């Protein structure tokens, strides 16, 4: 069980074949145009204007719509109207299967029910963050709790977020994963040896694990959490990439100029863990 896309869920269940999934995705890709192309198709921008915006985008990291407004090619109300139209025209993967005649509406509906049931544990947020925090911050805290339960069978409680300046010195190990794209947060999870060992044992399914396994398990756990955060963010329309997990030294400072929040995670009999996101 993990946060996943409906198409992937169907493939893993054997409800569709790889070829059918690719056919539906190709249909989606043809129908769900990027904003610039969509604006041209609807007559809000000319092809020449879009080329100029694309050229300008090479020099900035701004979104197409924002650039179009900034360059005076479209007004803010028109952009909002366009975004709304694009959202309404968006073809979901289930709809794509139906339109291509690959699945019937009944089957899609039945599979959606199963999908929602599969994803139910991930649907509700338990974490809160100060106003203005990156969405990935809340999602990271939330998924960490759920994965502790799912992977390590550890019931944990999440405390309030508080700012911190360094990785706790008493951590057995600390692992960092950086988000990029629509989030510039960094996920850092600090482990006691007991918790990291519990996770490693759970991964391997045997009672004996080496120190290398334990640290590997900590990295893998963070990789899974952040991969799931990507899925949550994607559902919100945000494209986020993650770096491979990297070890951090306990006691080291948070990168200068960045903010870090520490969520205390209380776990039964396994000590408290600090989750830090900067």
């Amino acid at each position: 069980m993990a946060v996943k896309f409906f198409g992937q869920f169907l493939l893993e269940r054997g409800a569709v074949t790889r070829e059918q999934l690719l056919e539906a995705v190709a249909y989606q890709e043809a129908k769900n145009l990027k904003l610039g192309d969509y604006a041209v198709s609807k007559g809000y921008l000319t092809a020449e204007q879009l080329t100029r915006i694309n050229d300008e985008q090479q020099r900035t990291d701004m979104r197409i719509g924002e650039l179009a407004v900034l360059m005076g090619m479209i007004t803010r109300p028109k952009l909002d109207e366009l975004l709304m139209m694009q959202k309404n025209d968006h073809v979901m993967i289930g709809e794509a299967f139906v339109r291509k005649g690959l699945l019937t509406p009944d089957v899609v509906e039945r599979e959606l029910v199963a999908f929602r049931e599969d994803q139910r544990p991930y649907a509700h947020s338990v974490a809160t963050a100060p106003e203005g925090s990156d969405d990935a911050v809340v999602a990271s805290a939330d998924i960490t709790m759920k994965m502790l339960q799912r992977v390590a069978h550890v019931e944990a409680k999440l405390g309030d977020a508080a700012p911190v300046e360094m990785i706790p010195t008493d951590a057995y190990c600390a692992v960092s994963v950086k988000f990029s794209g629509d989030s510039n947060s960094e996920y850092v999870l600090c482990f006691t040896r007991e918790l990291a060992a519990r996770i490693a044992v759970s991964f391997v399914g045997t009672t004996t694990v080496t120190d290398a396994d334990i640290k590997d398990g900590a990295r893998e756990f963070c990789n899974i959490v952040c991969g799931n955060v990507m899925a949550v963010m994607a559902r919100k329309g945000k494209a986020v990439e993650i770096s491979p997990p990297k070890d951090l030294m306990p006691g080291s400072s948070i990168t200068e100029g960045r903010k870090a929040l520490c969520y205390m995670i209380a776990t039964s009999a396994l000590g408290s863990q600090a989750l830090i996101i900067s």
Partner: protein
Amino acid sequence: MSKKRVLIVDDSGLVAKQLAKILEDSGEFEPVGHGQNGLEGIKLFTSLKPDVVLMDLVMPEMDGLQAIRSIMALNKNAQIVVISSAGGVGEKVVEALKFGARSVISKPFDAQKVIEVIKGLA
């Protein structure tokens, strides 16, 4: 009937151990090798000639997408299953399927699901 031979390519030794155990416990599959990056995966594919490859996507030196392309160029009938670090790597999984991967398994693994997916390969 002989067991199907499975090559695991994942930079995490722990994940490889976990998958190897799932395969062994099934009694139907035999883990025959472990590559820690795409390059090692290609070399092991060539030397071991496995029936199935389980391939992670995000790895150092050479990622899974490049490795899938290379393996499919070597043998267009290769049976590759993507190990998705999360369902979240939607676009990369689709890209891997376009390159020729047959299916996908998500972490954290559900042992039964892993075996079902591999058994479901044509």
